[in-house]
């Protein structure tokens, strides 16, 4: 079975995740990604989501989900409870990024992080020439209605991982529809990272 209209970032994650893994999706929304992962990879999945109408849709799909916020939702898991913890398009919305990432790396053997790249050239142009907070495909919100609390670029995340001694095992960059290889910090709308704790970090 192929999902032709599956979101490109979901496709990337589908490629990364191995069969029958244990997966925790932080900020799972209406559960589309988890649903595809269960169907295609036979994963054992759980999700955490704050939005109640999204949670109802997850339950309708038969998913096992926790209605709550990510910032406080990770404490109840034992170390290495999951093969993968997913933070797709949700990291920029949590209050304490540092704590959440640390906890995600604790409860998951590997963590998949996906976020909109704030340094995409369209954003740069809008700031530089328009003098306005950018509104782009990956960052579609006006400044007064955005759920995003943090604005980061691909370079930001890379240097963050370096400073925290976090292994970057894979990095994949997405443009509007296609993957980006050249100068991702300029041309990618979305960055997806597969990360894990380095040995001396555990």
């Amino acid at each position, binding site marked *: 079975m192929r999902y032709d209209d599956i979101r490109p970032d979901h496709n990337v994650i589908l490629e990364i995740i191995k069969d029958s893994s244990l997966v925790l999706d932080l900020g799972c929304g209406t559960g589309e990604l988890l649903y595809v992962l269960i169907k295609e990879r036979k994963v054992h999945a759980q999700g955490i989501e704050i939005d109640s109408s999204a949670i109802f849709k997850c339950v309708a799909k038969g998913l096992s*989900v926790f209605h709550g916020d990510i910032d406080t939702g990770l404490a109840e898991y034992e170390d290495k*409870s999951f093969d993968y913890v997913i933070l797709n398009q949700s990291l920029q919305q949590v209050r304490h990024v540092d704590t959440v990432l640390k906890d995600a790396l604790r409860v998951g053997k590997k963590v998949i992080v996906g976020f909109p790249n704030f340094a995409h050239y369209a954003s740069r142009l809008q700031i530089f020439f328009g003098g306005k907070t950018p509104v782009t495909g990956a960052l579609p919100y006006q400044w007064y209605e955005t759920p995003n609390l943090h604005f980061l670029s691909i370079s930001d995340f890379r240097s963050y991982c370096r400073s925290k001694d976090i292994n970057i095992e894979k990095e994949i960059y997405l443009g509007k529809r296609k993957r980006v290889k050249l100068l991702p910090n300029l041309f990618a709308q979305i960055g997806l990272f597969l990360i894990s704790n380095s040995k001396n970090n555990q």
Partner: protein
Amino acid sequence: MTQYFTFDSIQLESGEKFGPVKIAYETYGVLDSERTNAILIVHALSGDAHAAGVDKSDETPGWWDSMIGPNKAFDTNKYFVICSNVFGGCKGSTGPLSINPETGKPYALDFPLISIGDMVECQKRLIEHLGIDTLLTVAGGSMGGMQVLSWLTRYPNRVKSVIPIATAIRHSPQQIAFHEVGRQAIMADPHWKSGNYYDGLHPTKGLAVARMIGHITYMSDASMTEKFGRQRKKSTEPFKFTADFQVEGYLRYRGDNFVKRFDANSYLYITKAMDNFDASDGKPLQESLRGVKTKLLVIAFKSDWLYPAYQSKEIVRACKLAGLDATYCEIDSTCGHDAFLLEVGEETYLITHFLKRVFHEYEVTGNYEI
């Protein structure tokens, strides 16, 4: 229609042996030939076996009739639903007002101290009597939720899933405190007479006050404002301690009505059982759940301050630590603790989908289109 099941004796959690025990119960729907579609509904403090349908004798609908029946959350076209009155109750099951065969009089305070676990033990006997080995689910709110948790820790292999609603692993001091005020109101009533009131006047004032306190804790600031505001009743003589405000009239009405249908001693015994309840005997709950395969749907309500959402989250947290499959949902409601009886739409949605998944044993719904 209410039926009765009697057995010789039960070994109580306190160690005491007690008998005979009669349990009142009702069933709805049909048990399938594989006996895999049985659901046990467990009631809250003042509930009874009459959970669904309309009682022919007094034409009252069951206490959870909005949730149990054809095409409802607990769909009796698909599932066989059982509900029994708890042991210690006063709605047909053996309790303090039952006749002690040794004396020929009501037990009153000779009735032994009972626990939530004892109630569950009686329910287990009942389902065995009905020829059921494994329940598809056990569901209930408030004290019902405590019985649900007790099923989970005592007989995890007998329940494929459980649905604890607006409940707690154990009572907080605040919850115990409200119960204690209710009990003190009963015991302060001169007609209580250390429980020996069955041949005379009953402690109706005390029980009514206990119920009034209960009703306050079941509502929320918002739901009371919405329901009563500061509206006065059509009273011509204000300020003489009549029920001037509508909320006062409501509480008095509820209190007075309650004493017609409930036994004060039962109230004492059952509230004490709730206060003493601890789903995992003081240990962290996750220790009692390791290796358990039962699936959970845990539901809490935003404005419920009697059983706040954090208590439901504690249940889920323990499940996560023990590796159980648990779904948690906090329904946005202004109804307070009463929400579990009132928020029918949301509960129906969640429970219908959850049960479908447990009954058919699939990971995710098959017909969902991306």
